[in-house]
């Protein structure tokens, strides 16, 4: 009996070693929803020698993780386009992309050029676009009227019924709503600090109006769907998902311009499966796969007809939210110069620590 067991163990151990020698593993570091099960199955069926492993994360944690490991442990990461330049300069966590291996013709030309311009260091390109979306506000139309942007989050009319996320987006959004343009001040630290001080004061005064600061999409959905909050800062993709459950809640692109982000593909410096990573990039940009991806993320793919490839209900939500003028008025996040995030961080902490009521 014991010897049978031992033989069995030995056999399975052997099988395991052989198995791992044959199959390559593609370790993705990405956002929730960016690696739907359906696509992973399809990809593994097309490439039987590749196993896909997914780790879900966000911009800050992606950089922190890759920094801690010196860029090893993952084969493909998906940070936003404005978070690559400084992180790469400072921590050297990515490796240059071989654009000849990527089907760049499938991507929307202006998004591709934008990301390339933002992520080129010493002539090497470090990222290409995957999906884009915007940050703005959403409002419950039954309970609000005339919501036009980030400024409405501090309207005393909605005391105790608004919510925002205490991260850099709200600082920038509030600055725009106060008539300033933070992206133009990026180069001038003193002017930027001056702007931050004004925004900090505004958001501290606003604190009694805000019910709570949300921290994630689920948190925000619960607040909106329960009716506890009627106006909130949001990612458009979260707003579209909520629109599906309650069509009174719509995304409002701020009059001052919705803040647009592009999530990208970047290969960590210690990535061990570059070919598999390139295969995955080209795979998810194929039109039939874009549809599945967008259904899962709610974001728009960086392909020329991205909006048409959204599922029907989300197309409706996008069209309910955006006019062509809104789309032309998008404000893409500019590269963050080093040092700015420290200034923003302390502003955010001052707001959080300020007492209200």
């Amino acid at each position, binding site marked *: 009996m014991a010897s049978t067991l031992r033989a069995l163990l030995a056999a399975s151990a052997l099988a395991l070693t052989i198995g791992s020698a044959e199959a390559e593993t593609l370790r993705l570091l990405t956002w929730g929803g960016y690696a739907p099960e359906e696509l992973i199955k399809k990809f593994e069926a097309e490439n039987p020698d590749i196993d896909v492993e997914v780790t879900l994360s966000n911009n*800050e*944690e992606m*950089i*922190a993780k890759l*920094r801690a490991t010196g860029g090893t442990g993952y084969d493909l990461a998906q940070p936003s386009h404005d978070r690559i330049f400084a*992180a790469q*300069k*400072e*921590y050297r966590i990515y490796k240059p992309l071989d654009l000849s291996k990527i089907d760049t013709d499938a991507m929307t030309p202006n998004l591709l050029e934008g990301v390339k311009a933002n992520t080129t260091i010493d002539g090497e390109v470090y990222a290409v676009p995957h999906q884009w979306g915007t940050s703005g506000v959403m409002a419950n139309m039954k309970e609000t009227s005339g919501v036009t942007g980030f400024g409405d989050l501090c309207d005393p009319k909605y005391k*105790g019924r608004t919510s925002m996320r205490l*991260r850099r987006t709200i600082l920038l959004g509030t600055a725009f709503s106060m008539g300033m343009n933070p992206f133009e001040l990026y180069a001038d630290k003193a002017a930027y600090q001056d702007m931050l001080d004004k925004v900090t004061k505004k958001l501290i005064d606003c*604190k009694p109006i*805000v*019910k*709570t*600061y949300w921290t994630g999409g689920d948190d925000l959905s619960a607040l909106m769907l*329960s*009716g*506890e909050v009627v106006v909130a800062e949001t990612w458009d993709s979260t707003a579209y998902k909520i629109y599906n459950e309650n069509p009174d809640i719509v995304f409002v692109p701020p009059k001052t311009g919705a803040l647009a982000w592009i999530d990208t593909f970047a290969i960590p410096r210690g990535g061990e499966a570059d070919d598999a990573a390139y295969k995955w990039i080209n795979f998810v940009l194929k039109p039939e796969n874009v549809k599945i991806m967008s259904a899962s993320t709610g974001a728009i793919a960086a392909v020329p007809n991205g909006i048409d490839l959204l599922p029907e209900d989300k197309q409706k939500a996008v069209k309910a939210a955006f006019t062509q003028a809104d789309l032309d008025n998008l404000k893409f996040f500019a590269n963050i110069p*080093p040092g700015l*995030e*420290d200034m923003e*961080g*302390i502003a*955010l*902490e*001052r707001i*959080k*620590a300020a*007492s*209200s009521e």
Partner: protein
Amino acid sequence: MGRDAGKLSLTLLMTPFLLWIGLLIILPQIGIGYVSLREKVSYDEFHYGLKNYVDFISEPVYRNTLFRTAWMSIVVTALALVVGFPVAYYIAKIARQKSRAALFLMCLIPLWVSDLVRAYGWIVLLRETGVVSRTLVALGIIGQPVEMLYNDATVVMGLVYTVVLFMIVPLTSTLQGMDDALLEAGYNLGGSRLTVFRRIIVPYAMPGIVSGCIITFMLTAGSYLTPVLLGGKNSSWFTEQIYNQFITRYNWEAGATFGVTLLVFTSFVVWLGLKLTGQSLATTVAKD
């Protein structure tokens, strides 16, 4: 020969403990201390010095958060003692031998569920559209739904709930060792209930009280989930700022500085607490 064997078994027994302390506690602390002395000049260029600590002291937000965290942790510790002492006394002295195990187990049950789930449990109960608020409205006790989350009282309550067990366990085991004859002698000599409590029970339970307070204080000051989830917009907790420095702002140097500061400051508070109450670790926790 016999002595060598004894030595060997002692070494073997101590090895896991020493490895654990050395590799998982002392080494990381040294690393944190080292990083906290590093000053970033520019990309990959560092100086060494105390600038991070100076920055910490000169920024009121951080200072105040640290004091606030320490103060609220003291409140939580005191409340946990007030809540935990009667429970421990009941389990150790009043309950019958048979039911003791069952009572103890009941205290342990909340620990079978993870911190995160317990915090979400509170959220489901206390939010504006939550169970408690709805029930009160349905019963006609209040006219409007009321928000019970996102304030300091909720945070303190949630923390007391999380840590009270760590107060009860040491108290119970200390009180169990107390001979009932001591109490009877006290009463026989004409002591009132209060006198007996003050002069006999509390001094006897002191080792339990001290170790319970140290554990709960340290756990509270170092907790992360409960204050962040229940506290909402006004909950600045020091651990959250450490997280922010490391993760959101990529500023490991400042994060490490905060970590060292928290350790030193909470140790100082414990030391101060022992001094003020005239206790010392040698006569309480380490007493035979």
